[in-house]
């Protein structure tokens, strides 16, 4: 598998992961920004866990959940769905690891939107959903995109969870980070450094964009 296809695969999975987590992530961010409810801190903590726990631990949890002998095993087998050691596992691992980035950044964005706009919209007859889609989300958009870019950057660099639940199968689940590790382990330093350069470039670009967007204040 050459550098180009490994890179393309990694970026595709990272985009898939960010897309997968986008709506749920925004939902959780909105919930945490605007509502008080029992279990709020618990939700906040659980969503932030992949940020602080060792990524291999997150990967292990996913593996135990999704493997044939795990709780979801029989269900997956009934529909002949294989997740572990496929690109789906890569996307899931990347998604869960990147989720806290999206939620935390988007939440800050929503908290910065003046509630009065939403209240005015309500008095004018807008449903909460319409108010969210036409007022809150557009105003918080720079933060939301910054959060998504952060999640994407984190997903591209994800290693621990990916290697546990998706393995390092050439042509099937070998992402940039996993390939770098593989080359290092087998003494192919030149190839490892090549991939390192690619990965650093992508990370730089994504983070730079994210920081630029986060600096913009809502109107």
């Amino acid at each position, binding site marked *: 598998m050459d550098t180009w296809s490994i890179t393309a695969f990694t970026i595709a999975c990272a985009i898939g992961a960010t897309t997968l987590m986008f709506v749920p992530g925004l939902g959780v961010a909105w919930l945490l920004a605007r509502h008080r409810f029992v279990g709020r801190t618990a939700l906040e903590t659980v969503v932030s866990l992949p940020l602080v726990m060792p990524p291999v631990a997150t990967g292990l949890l996913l593996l135990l959940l999704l*493997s044939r*002998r795990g709780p979801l095993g029989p269900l997956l087998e009934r529909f002949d769905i294989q997740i*572990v050691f496929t690109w789906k596992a890569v996307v899931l691992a990347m998604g869960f690891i990147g989720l806290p980035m999206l939620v935390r950044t988007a939440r800050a964005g929503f908290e910065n939107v003046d509630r009065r706009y939403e209240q005015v919209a309500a008095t004018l007859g807008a449903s909460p959903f319409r108010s969210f889609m036409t007022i809150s989300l557009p105003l918080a958009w720079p933060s939301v995109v910054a959060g998504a870019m952060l999640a994407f950057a984190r997903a591209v660099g994800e290693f621990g969870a990916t290697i546990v639940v998706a393995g*390092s*199968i050439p042509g099937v689940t070998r992402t940039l980070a996993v390939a770098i590790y*593989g080359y*290092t382990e*087998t*003494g192919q330093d030149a190839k490892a450094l090549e991939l390192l350069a690619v990965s650093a470039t992508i990370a730089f670009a994504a983070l730079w964009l994210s920081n630029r967007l986060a600096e913009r204040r809502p109107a």
Partner: protein
Amino acid sequence: MFARIAAFALSACAGVPQGLPTRPPITVSAAVSLTDVLMAEAQEYARTGGGNVRFNFGASNVLARQIASGAPVDLFISADQAQMDVVAAAGAIGGTRVDLLYNQLAVVVPSDRPRTLRSVRELADPAFKRIAIGDPQAVPAGVYAKQYLQQVGIWDAVQQRIVPSASVRAALSAVETGAVDAAIVYRTDARISTRASAALVGPLADGPRIVYPAAITKSAEQPAEASRFLDFLRSGKGRLVFERFGFTPVS
């Protein structure tokens, strides 16, 4: 208050039970398939008056890289000659290099789906959707597995279904969780595992010759102590422990 806790902790560390030697432990880097047997050996060694041993277990290719890069290890036991050659090529072998053990390959399956294979050729059956082996690029168990599969002529047929794992124990673990349908590991790993059952066990008439070489390293901080431990492993007592775990000591 803090001072009291600190004083207590320090005194707990400083207290040494009667009869235990106070020499610093030697550091042994060993193939991960030797984890259980070497822990038992170290216990026996300490019990009979030897020193303490500190282990660094991993895939032999990773360990070899560490040593070649100057890791302060006293003794290295590799699962194949190739990784010991890596260390030798880096000029990191201090003393003589000896062949310590033989091992055999085995095919294991998840224990909730036991089967018996009469030949490794049966792995070509598409019912085995995923087969875990050590990474055939450098992990010894994977190299041996690929060599064997090539030798019996089914490598091309199974290659697409191979899941390369970071070490032989990672391959074993993949089978234990049911993430793969079969794995090629060592016979000694199959014996240890409770959630994977052996489908085909060596001695395999056509199986690869698996040899574990051992050598004291150049960067060894305690070469004499390491040599004593190596001698213990090669002694009658040491050989008994190896045999108990299913290894065949080199005579």
